[in-house]
């Protein structure tokens, strides 16, 4: 169970908000991904194929696997390390009609204790001499939460997403974008295995655990602005900002800067810096004063007050032509991202000490993406 009330909804952005109404290239990608940090290792493949027909229709399919080996701080303090596998399959279709593009998509994600199904539609329209692109979309998700060791346990989660995007060409070198998305969830939104801790003088450690209890609804709004600027010597500078707020009391800010530099005819290099910070949910506490201290109880570190930083490096190499005549061009890419997470009110219980005075938790994570792309 790795879902943290996280929808597949965003997986359906086959025609992401804020793009011109142009069908994607015929292309196949084979990607290997690996995440390693905080005692968790997740790796696996992702395969994506897109194909156009008659310059008016396009279909896509994605097969994605997560192989998880988890000994995260949550797991080592209240459960046993585990391994599991999640498989996600998604398909999409686009229709281009003049300056309007319609996209429909469906995705299914399955693991031993969680199933998610999502369907979505997006419409994208070029306007004002194609300097402006306006898009909007809607997705609906139906999830089922199960629990290992309890065959009777089954809880639904319904999700909805509404989104609007706008991109605008301002000058021959500057493009800006705006995106807004509202996501609404209803159902069992907490992890059925996770616990909160509370002060308990009867316990040898001074504290004890009880299961989390979350509100059964959550609505969030996210507003993002971005800009991309073409530098005269053929390079690109990008900036992104996102503000997020939800009905659980989480407010978050995200800022990102990126630089893309080609080198010769065969290389493209990228460097990215990203900062993220959020406040905690209203019902979050690292240590509650007593059992059943309040109606809603949460100790998910992703709902605590924390900040993270990421530095990313990427390189794409255009491969020389080789025997496969059906491929017009091929590239090999490697992206490495280094994360640092620092929690302000989530403590490292494994360090021991007086309850509530343990050192604050933090960890580094390494993310690797290695992929081959072929255009046909």
């Amino acid at each position, binding site marked *: 169970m790795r879902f943290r009330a*996280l*929808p597949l909804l*965003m*997986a359906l*952005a086959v025609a*992401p*908000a*804020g793009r011109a109404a142009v069908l994607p290239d015929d292309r196949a*990608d084979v990607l290997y991904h690996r995440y390693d940090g905080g005692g968790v290792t997740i790796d696996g493949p*992702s395969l*994506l194929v897109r194909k156009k027909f008659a310059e008016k229709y396009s279909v896509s399919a*994605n097969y*994605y696997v997560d192989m998880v080996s988890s000994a995260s701080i949550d797991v080592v303090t209240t459960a046993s390390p585990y391994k599991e596998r*999640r498989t996600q399959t*998604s398909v999409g279709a686009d229709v281009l009609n003049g300056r309007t593009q319609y996209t429909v998509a469906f995705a299914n994600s399955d693991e031993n204790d969680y199933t*998610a199904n999502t369907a979505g539609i997006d*419409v994208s*329209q070029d306007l*004002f*001499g*194609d*300097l402006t692109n306006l898009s*909007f979309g*809607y997705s609906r998700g139906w999830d089922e939460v199960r629990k290992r060791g309890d065959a009777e346990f089954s809880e639904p989660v319904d999700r909805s997403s*509404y*989104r609007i*995007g706008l991109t605008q*060409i*301002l000058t*021959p070198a500057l*493009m800006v*974008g705006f*995106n*807004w998305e*509202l996501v609404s969830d209803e159902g069992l939104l907490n992890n059925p295995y996770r616990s909160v801790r509370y002060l308990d003088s009867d316990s040898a450690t001074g504290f004890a655990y009880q299961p989390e209890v979350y509100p059964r609804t959550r609505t969030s709004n*996210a507003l*993002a602005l*971005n800009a*991309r600027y*073409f530098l005269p010597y*053929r390079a*690109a500078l990008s900036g*992104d900002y*996102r503000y997020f707020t939800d009905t659980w009391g*989480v407010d*978050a800010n*995200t800022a990102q800067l990126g630089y*893309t*530099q*080609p080198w010769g005819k065969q290389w493209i290099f990228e460097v990215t810096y990203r900062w*993220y910070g959020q406040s905690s*949910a209203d019902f979050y506490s690292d240590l509650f004063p007593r059992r059943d201290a309040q109606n809603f109880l949460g100790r998910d570190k*992703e*709902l605590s007050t924390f900040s*993270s930083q990421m530095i990313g490096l990427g390189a794409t190499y255009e491969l020389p032509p080789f025997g496969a005549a059906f491929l017009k061009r091929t590239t090999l*890419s490697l*992206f490495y*991202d280094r994360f640092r997470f620092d929690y302000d009110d989530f403590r490292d219980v494994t360090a021991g000490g007086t309850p509530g005075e343990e050192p604050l938790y933090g960890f580094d994570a390494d993310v690797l993406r290695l*992929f081959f*792309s072929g255009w046909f």
Partner: protein
Amino acid sequence: MEPKRAVAMAALLAALSGCSSVEPWVKPYERQNFADPVMAGDRDPVAVAYLNHVFEAREGARGALGSHGGGCGCN
């Protein structure tokens, strides 16, 4: 989708469609920079989707990833 919201979105799109005769101030022949791969924020959708998936799994925030493509759901 709520009917009111759907009607508002449709009306907005229809209203803007009627303005497509606005004279573009960046001419088509001045837009070659935007066709350059370095200007595509989602140049590699399969890779962008994966990184957004990592963000969604590790952070409380979600949504409005826009041209960054999509995430998918796990941590």
